[in-house]
């Protein structure tokens, strides 16, 4: 393809090819500080290309193709090429990742122990993880937690954090303008801006951590918490996994191992400070 870039995020590497320059240029800007996998074999290939040849020039529209594809995914406008690249990489993970059990969850780490934040889209886990990442935690990832089926360890996937709508301003105040990517307005998910993780999170992106706590955060309710029983945790995590069924017995074994060893709590919070204090308190109470 005319324009191409290799990107490594944690233990996974992508080759992103594009018929246009701008998506690859934007991606290169966002991942400039990541270790370059120039000499590495890539796990997955993403192609950003016109659905029909003339759509390269005429009302350009970016179809998201690659090793794994959704047959009826809607193309994006060229202005949203960076989002297309991100969606293409997520799609490879969701459909093609077979080495790790993939949980749709954010992860933060401290002292070698990881906290998994999972919940439905819009529960606030991405923003909460980003905030924790600015307050002494290592951000391991805002989108996917990678559970190693053999060792039970969590591997980081610290891609650039995809901030949406209101959380953009929240994070701009905390992290500053310098680490934010371009503003993508009018996407199917509203306004999006990407936040580069802190340098430490990127430098340690191949360093796994032992899972220690599972949280189900929910934004918008009064401060509350309740323990979640193992059966409920298990079922909710199967729903949060994109490849649980595909991994068959390996998926079952690693997920039951995780649920058996980690306490789990549901936490409700009206604002970010409450959420952070809840996470800190629960983490402190964990047996050493």
């Amino acid at each position: 393809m005319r324009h191409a870039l290799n990107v490594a995020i944690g233990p996974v590497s992508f080759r992103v090819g594009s018929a246009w320059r701008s998506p690859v240029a934007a991606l290169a800007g966002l991942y400039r500080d990541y270790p370059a996998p120039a000499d590495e074999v890539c796990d997955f290939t993403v192609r950003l290309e016109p659905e029909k040849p003339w759509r390269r020039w005429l009302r350009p529209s970016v179809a998201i193709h690659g090793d794994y594809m959704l047959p009826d995914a809607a193309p994006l406008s060229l202005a949203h090429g960076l989002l297309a690249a991100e969606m293409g990489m997520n799609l490879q993970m969701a459909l093609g990742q077979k080495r790790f059990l993939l949980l749709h969850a954010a992860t933060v780490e401290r002292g070698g122990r990881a906290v998994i934040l999972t919940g439905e889209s819009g529960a606030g886990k991405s923003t909460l993880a980003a905030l924790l990442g600015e307050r002494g935690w290592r951000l391991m990832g805002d989108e996917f937690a990678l559970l190693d089926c053999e060792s039970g360890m969590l591997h980081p996937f610290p891609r650039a954090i995809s901030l949406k709508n209101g959380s953009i301003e929240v994070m701009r105040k905390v992290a500053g303008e310098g680490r934010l990517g371009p503003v993508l307005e009018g996407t199917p998910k509203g306004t999006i801006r990407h936040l580069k993780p802190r340098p430490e999170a990127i430098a340690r992106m191949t360093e796994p951590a032992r899972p220690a706590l599972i949280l189900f955060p929910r934004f918008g309710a009064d401060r509350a918490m309740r323990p979640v029983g193992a059966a409920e945790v298990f079922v909710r995590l199967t729903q949060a996994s994109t490849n649980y069924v595909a991994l068959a017995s390996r998926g079952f074994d690693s997920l039951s191992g995780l649920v058996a060893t980690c306490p789990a709590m549901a936490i409700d919070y009206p604002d970010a400070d409450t959420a952070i204090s809840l996470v800190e308190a629960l983490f402190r109470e964990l047996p050493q």
Partner: protein
Amino acid sequence: MSRLLARILADPSACRGLEAAQWTALVTAARAESLLGSLAFRLEGEPGLPAKVVQILEAARWDSEQARTQALWEAEMARRALAGTGAPVILLKGTAIVAAGLDAGRGRSIGDLDILVPHERLDDVQRSLLEAGWEWVKEDSYDDLYYRRWMHELPPLIHRTRDRMIDVHHTILPPTARPRPDAAALIAASVALESGLRTLSPEDMVVHSAAHLFADGDLAGGLRNLWDIDRMLREFAARDPGFWPRLAERARLHQLRPTVARALRLARALYATPVDPALAGRPRLSDRFFEARLLARNGWGQPTRRALRFAFYLRSHWMRMPPLMLARHLWTKATR
């Protein structure tokens, strides 16, 4: 890149010295041709592979083991659903290959379940499948009528809860195609498996693969189907010295001798398959087009040679129907 993929499948040592970017392209092309699992088994134990390649191939082997388990389970589900009909149920294509434990099944990707049953038992079979939870995929009445009058299979059915498709065949080529395979002979020569399900005889399996690849369809995914043929020819010929003459005999019986000959020549060209030269016959100029079509994919996984692909697409329709019927069919599809 497809040519390199074919060469490495045939001779794994050809991967030595590949650079990182070539490995990425090879993996992508193999995924696009549904051959990554097969490649993973071929390269198992190959020394000096880059660490990342080892990881990718290991995951591909796990994945194809899982595909195999699922395909065999789906076959078992069909066996239970159809046990009451008393009809012989003959597995075809990928499921047959793994159920028979053939070399070609190592790492093979498997999509739908394909079975062959006697034509006169179609109504019973259809009723039993519908009772056991399978449903029609296409509701369109033209499609339905088209399948029933002119195809070698029922319209596709999908299982309500397992979400897996089944294609029920009564012969191996559409009745409108020029060659007329002998469906009764296919069934009579079929071989029982331990489960009670059946597969075609080894010779008929090769004939069917060749027919499916070269006499029906536009060669999409053909590199994988030709790989099946390569593996089967090697395994069957090594097992039994009488294989080649019997293959010639069955190919003639099913009116598919030129098709089988073409399959042998292309397997030899792409995978260095040892074949019976008399049955393969003299190379033909058109073999070059078939070879180019089979290799029409680049290292980004993109299809290439657009015009050639389109020509083979037209050919697939031309072979399937007489001209007047083809015109009517295309008209209906274009205007509905």
